[in-house]
């Protein structure tokens, strides 16, 4: 521990704590634009400068550790003036189009300009004039709005290890771009959207599909149905001033009906179904050796894309089960349409996801058209849905809690925890245990699969079988797990794992790239907690106990891994080039 002074107040912090963090501890906020709690400081913006011992060279508080005996001044007239001028400089190189911006009212730069009371900018306008990149239909890159804080690149290269984004050129011409100045769609981008989640401005945002959704909703010919993913319910509240992690499932159903959806489904039902298929797959591979182990989960589209590009030799390890979104999608246009005598051609299926990659998943391969139509027509992010609710003039707070539509809306606690890292594994193990032993697990140590540790490794005992599992979230953490598998495979050694769960986004879907802005670990934990509470609240905690799942199998699919479920609920993977030229 070290002791120093900030604005005359003594502070005691651990060695290595930055001046910025130390100041926060004593309730002094030093403004900063480029620093994000998830990321190492890059010292790019120059706003967070402070004085030590009355002057000399200014220090960047974001990346300078507090040292014993320092006398830091965070605010005085000179610092205020410098910060304001730097902010004016940044604004002079940023388009003045806040009103038409994806981040209007939700932008860190805008907020800072407001806080500093910028009323006019005497500086020259320096426009960048770089064309946006909308090639992915998942994420829009608008370099003109970029302030070059470097967060997106930091996330993409260092946290996600994808290397789709980079800086190009230098000086005033510096810009963000996909690798090698190609289109983002041709780059290794896996559409995880972590760049957009960390962007302080509107430079990277989701590809907006709200107008297409509105058009469908107002089209009397169309029969619009919707599904919401687990992670959405515990995050949407942030857009309406609710406490972090509050579960708003009922209000969401109500809001979706108010928007004009004829039926409201829940992706958690799809999650239950995924568990059924995946756990069966696992049990078969484990017991009957029908396929290679470890089995690796495949419900995260960014992860699937990453594997197809970077680790295509792992394809055989992938669960062929589609993601919960896709399962609900295909069943709505087959089973649900059949049961309710709706022409699937007129059905318009919208999914609300915490995710930008789900926009990509809905046309990923021909398997996404298993119903004979595009199974899911539009995939919206949590952020887009929040905007739609506001646009529709719905008083979200005043809405009563409603129930979803049967059957595709009924879920168990196992399905809803899919939204947090470790959730898929936990849900699958609960059911796998049943499949192997014929009875539900009593007290099982599932705690070891929860939480924000980058890679979680544990062994689960199912009827004397030691099942070794690994859970990785954040693509940057995957390498460790995969290398271990590859090494064992190459050296023909015992497999390190039997079952592996991977989620591309840190924290899993609760920390997804399509969630409300401002994600931090604290928020990830709160959102996940909301999901685990939902699990407790549910009548059923095992996917196989979901009466409606049983019904779907009885009525329609037969049993897990049946021919029909193979046709509708499973997919294949193909190696893809890292770069398309």
């Amino acid at each position: 521990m070290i002791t120093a002074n900030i604005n005359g107040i003594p502070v005691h912090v651990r060695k290595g704590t930055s001046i910025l963090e130390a100041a926060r501890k004593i309730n002094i906020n030093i403004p900063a634009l480029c620093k994000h709690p998830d990321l190492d400081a890059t010292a790019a913006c120059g706003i967070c400068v402070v004085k030590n011992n009355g002057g000399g060279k200014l220090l960047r508080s974001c990346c300078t550790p507090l040292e014993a005996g320092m006398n830091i001044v965070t605010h005085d007239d000179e610092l205020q003036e410098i910060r304001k001028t730097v902010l004016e400089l940044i604004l002079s190189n940023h388009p003045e189009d806040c009103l038409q911006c994806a981040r209007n009212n939700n932008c860190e730069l805008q907020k800072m300009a407001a806080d500093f009371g910028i009323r006019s900018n005497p500086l020259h306008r320096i426009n960048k004039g770089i064309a946006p990149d909308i090639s992915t239909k998942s994420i829009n890159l608008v370099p003109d709005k970029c302030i070059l804080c470097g967060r997106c690149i930091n996330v993409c290269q260092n946290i996600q290890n994808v290397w789709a984004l980079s800086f190009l050129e230098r000086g005033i011409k510096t810009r963000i771009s996909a690798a090698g100045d190609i289109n983002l769609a041709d780059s290794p981008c896996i559409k995880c959207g972590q760049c957009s989640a960390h962007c302080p401005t509107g430079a990277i945002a989701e590809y907006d599909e709200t107008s297409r959704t509105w058009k469908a909703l107002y089209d009397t010919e169309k029969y619009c149905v919707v599904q919401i993913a687990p992670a959405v319910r515990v995050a949407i509240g942030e857009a309406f001033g609710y406490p972090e992690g509050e579960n708003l499932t009922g209000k969401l159903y109500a809001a979706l009906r108010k928007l004009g959806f004829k039926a409201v489904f829940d992706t958690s039902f799809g999650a239950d179904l995924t568990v059924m298929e995946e756990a069966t797959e696992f049990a078969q591979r484990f017991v009957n050796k029908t396929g290679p182990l470890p089995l690796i989960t495949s419900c995260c589209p960014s992860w699937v894309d990453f594997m197809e590009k970077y680790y295509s030799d792992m394809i055989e390890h992938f669960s062929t089960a589609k993601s919960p979104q896709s399962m609900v999608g295909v069943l709505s246009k087959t089973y649900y349409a059949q049961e309710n005598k709706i022409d699937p051609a007129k059905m318009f299926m919208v999914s609300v996801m915490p995710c930008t990659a789900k926009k990509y998943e809905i046309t990923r391969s021909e398997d996404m058209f298993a119903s004979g139509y595009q199974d899911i027509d539009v995939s919206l992010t949590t952020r887009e849905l929040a905007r739609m609710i506001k646009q529709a003039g719905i008083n979200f707070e005043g809405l009563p809690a409603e129930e979803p539509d049967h059957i595709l809306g009924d879920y168990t606690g196992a399905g809803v925890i899919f939204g947090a890292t470790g959730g898929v594994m936990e849900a699958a193990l609960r059911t796998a245990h049943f499949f192997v032993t014929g009875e539900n697990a009593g007290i099982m140590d599932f705690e070891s699969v929860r939480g924000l540790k980058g890679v979680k490794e544990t062994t689960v005992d199912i009827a004397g079988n030691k099942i070794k599992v690994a859970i990785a979230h954040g693509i940057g953490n995957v390498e460790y797990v995969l290398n271990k598998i590859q090494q064992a495979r190459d050296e023909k050694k015992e497999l390190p794992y039997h079952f592996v769960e991977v989620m591309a986004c840190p924290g899993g879907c609760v920390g997804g790239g399509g969630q409300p802005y401002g994600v931090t670990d604290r928020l990830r934990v709160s959102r996940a907690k909301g999901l685990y509470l939902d699990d407790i609240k549910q009548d059923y905690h095992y996917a196989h106990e979901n009466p409606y799942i049983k019904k779907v199998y009885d009525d329609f699919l037969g049993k897990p891994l049946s021919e029909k479920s193979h046709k509708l609920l499973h997919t294949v993977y193909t190696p893809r080039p890292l770069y398309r030229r």
Partner: protein
Amino acid sequence: MKHKILVVESDVTFAGKAAELLSSYNYSIYTAGTYKEGFEKIKKLAPDIVLVSLGMLRPGSRGDTVKSILQYAGINGIPAVIILPEAIQFPEGLEAFIEKVPLKTVVFKKDVEQVLVSNIKHLVQQAGEKHRQVIEEVALLVEKWKDKEGNLIMILHEIQKEFGYVPRSVAFILAQRLDIALARIYEVITFYNFFRLEAPGKHIISVCLGTACYLKGSGKILEEIKNILNVEEGQTTRDGLFYLQVVRCLGCCGLAPVMTVDDKVYGNMTRENVVNILSKYAKKGELSNGKAYKK
């Protein structure tokens, strides 16, 4: 996988023959009857080799679309075979342009059609071979530097020395061989002024705009060169002969103002002797009449 070959040729008989012959050698043939179509197709198909006939050039045309095709081929590492008709009036600068088309190209004269047909496979192979050579060259470089840390910039230097720039295709090969993200490679290439992403002209003119040179009027030298050659900084003359760039101090301040052509340094420059120096590199008489590079 079958190699894709794009034949850009309007002579249907010829194109047909070429196609027939090549398909029997297990190539997939695509044809384009106009340069415009050729340009569209090369972008869309990304063929392994492109055959471009110059027989479709109309008198007085500038051959810009041909250039686009060849440039695209060059940038993307697609070898090109150029078929010349018997007598050809080259549009201004095209010949020189062809000479410097990146990723070396085979040029074949269409004297006798028969000869061409019997040679076409050989030509195609040769072009493919040259492409392979590039890959091997890069592999060698990578091998040489593999064990040294921080090697990327040094390898890029060697590549630029070899090719005059860093071709896109080479950057892709490099990413693969070095196991470095393409993002990193382009981050570096575009950060450093020294590296070029496009082929420069045959001769590189560098005008020093260091302080000493600037004060002694290198700005005027630069203006004069631009004026004579009708190019801007960072551009190549239309005939592909000169590439003009500005540098910040060559360290020859004692001789200010200074310019270099390729490796040769010219000191104590005056506006008047610019034309004399450039004439040494231009075709005889082209610069002295002052018309060659005017708009």
